[in-house]
């Protein structure tokens, strides 16, 4: 019936009668006025503090400004994609260890996964920034950022992959074993490929967390977008406008990634596994 296809938030309310309709109209008017007032209040704040002055916004019409921000964005993407790729591999390895039939192995990997899911990426970044060099290991700022981010992501990805493996019907494994495949081959040829298909939308949405994690790049002096924004600020003395513009760019990028994940999920008929994807540091 048509009722099953409407969303729950619509289903909470029934088709309004005349009184309810009037109330909704009044509510809509009040809410609209309040909303406009809110926007106006924020704009007023900007205005009375002089933040609308052209000097704070003019340099955004210059190509060099955008060029600089985009080169920082490129740095962001490089770190994010590298960290994401490493996390994919580590995630699979951790997951395989976690589902191992050997109790000792699975316990160890369980601890490893829980550890990386349970510590902030910032702490690991400090570890790579402060401790690793103290042991005489030279590492570029790129890797000081990419490695800790990939470690935190791999803990989450391991759990995502595990959910994917669990989603593969048991009959698949039994059928493969019955035609004489070895356990290892079953995992490689039958289960993993299907599990990966299940979790692709979740992997994409996990990229949002990785992108967010890269924003502390200034800790290790890696030139990502936020770090480059700081340089712009010292050049143009336009702190408020720059930080707001950069925040909006980040929001749009992450929004796009999320939409892509939803799109892929819809097309493949899978759903986004959101377990702990909300680690927003």
């Amino acid at each position, binding site marked *: 019936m048509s*009722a*099953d296809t*409407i*969303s*729950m*938030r619509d*289903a*909470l*309310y*029934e088709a*309004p009668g005349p009184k*309810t309709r009037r109330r*909704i109209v009044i*509510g*809509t008017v009040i*809410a*609209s006025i309040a*909303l406009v007032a809110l926007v106006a209040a924020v704009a007023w*704040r900007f205005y009375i*503090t002089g933040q609308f002055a052209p000097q704070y916004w003019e340099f955004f019409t210059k190509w060099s400004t955008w060029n600089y921000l985009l080169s920082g964005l490129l740095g962001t993407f490089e770190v994010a994609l590298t960290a994401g790729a490493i996390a994919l591999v580590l995630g699979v390895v951790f997951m395989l260890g976690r589902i191992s039939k050997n109790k000792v192995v699975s316990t160890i990997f369980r601890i490893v996964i*829980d*550890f990386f*899911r*349970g*510590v*902030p*990426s*910032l*702490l690991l970044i*400090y*570890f790579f920034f*402060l*401790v690793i060099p*103290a042991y005489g290991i030279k590492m570029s700022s790129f890797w000081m950022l990419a490695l800790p981010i990939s470690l935190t992501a791999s803990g989450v990805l391991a759990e995502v992959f595990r959910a994917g493996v669990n989603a593969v019907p048991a009959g698949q494994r039994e059928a493969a074993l019955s035609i004489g495949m070895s356990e290892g081959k079953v995992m490689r040829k039958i289960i993993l490929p299907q599990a990966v298909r299940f979790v692709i939308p979740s992997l994409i949405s996990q990229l*949002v967390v990785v*992108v*967010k994690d890269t*924003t*502390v790049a200034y800790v290790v002096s890696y030139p990502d977008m*936020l770090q480059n924004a700081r340089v712009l600020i010292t050049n143009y003395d336009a*702190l*408020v406008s720059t*930080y*707001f513009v*950069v*925040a909006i760019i*980040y*929001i*749009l*990028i*992450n*929004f796009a990634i*999320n939409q892509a994940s939803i799109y892929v999920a819809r097309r493949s008929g899978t759903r986004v596994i*959101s*377990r*702990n994807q*909300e*680690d*927003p*540091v």
Partner: protein
Amino acid sequence: MGLQELLSTYGGMYGQALLVTWRMTVVSYLGAMALALIVTVARVSPIAPLRKLGDFYVQVFRNIPGVSLLIICVYALPNLRVVLDYEACVIVTTVLVASAFGSENFMSGINTIGVGQIEAARSIGLSFGQILRHVVIPQALRSAVLPMTNLLIAVMLTTALASQVPLDPPELTGLVSYINTRSVGGILPFFVSAVGYAGTAFLIGIVGNRIDKKVRILR
């Protein structure tokens, strides 16, 4: 530096740092839950501008990086003559971000209920308020237990942002860089802080799973 030496010198500070992390986590989580509730009410209200505002709020704050928001709070807001102290900025940042995810959890909790149960409740003559009280809210809350547990852990991890502002006393992540600037750190100072986080996350996970097992709705 050995563990014993580390703990005899900084043990008290670690204890304090753990308490600061916990305190900021609890305060932020409570604030986030309250705000998430308000945002969710707006998102399911029949008033279109409120719905759109709620959806917009969630998209903005689930996608903004925490650091970016913290920087705006610490550096940009004073230029707009809105001045918050450092800890308040960390908490505001965490609350804003976490409430967006909290609202998503509530929404998916509501979505698991299904239109049919609402119609059935209507058919036996329950009022809108009664339907919310007896059918929608209890089910949404119960199916949100696990996601909200994960959110609590995420909130704790987000409070590590406090290491980016001078906080006295520092929390677990800030303390590590504090120690490192004073003595030759090595792995241990990190490990102690990491155990503080991971241990807390572990405990939260256990409690959350227990509660979930008790209240989970069979479908």
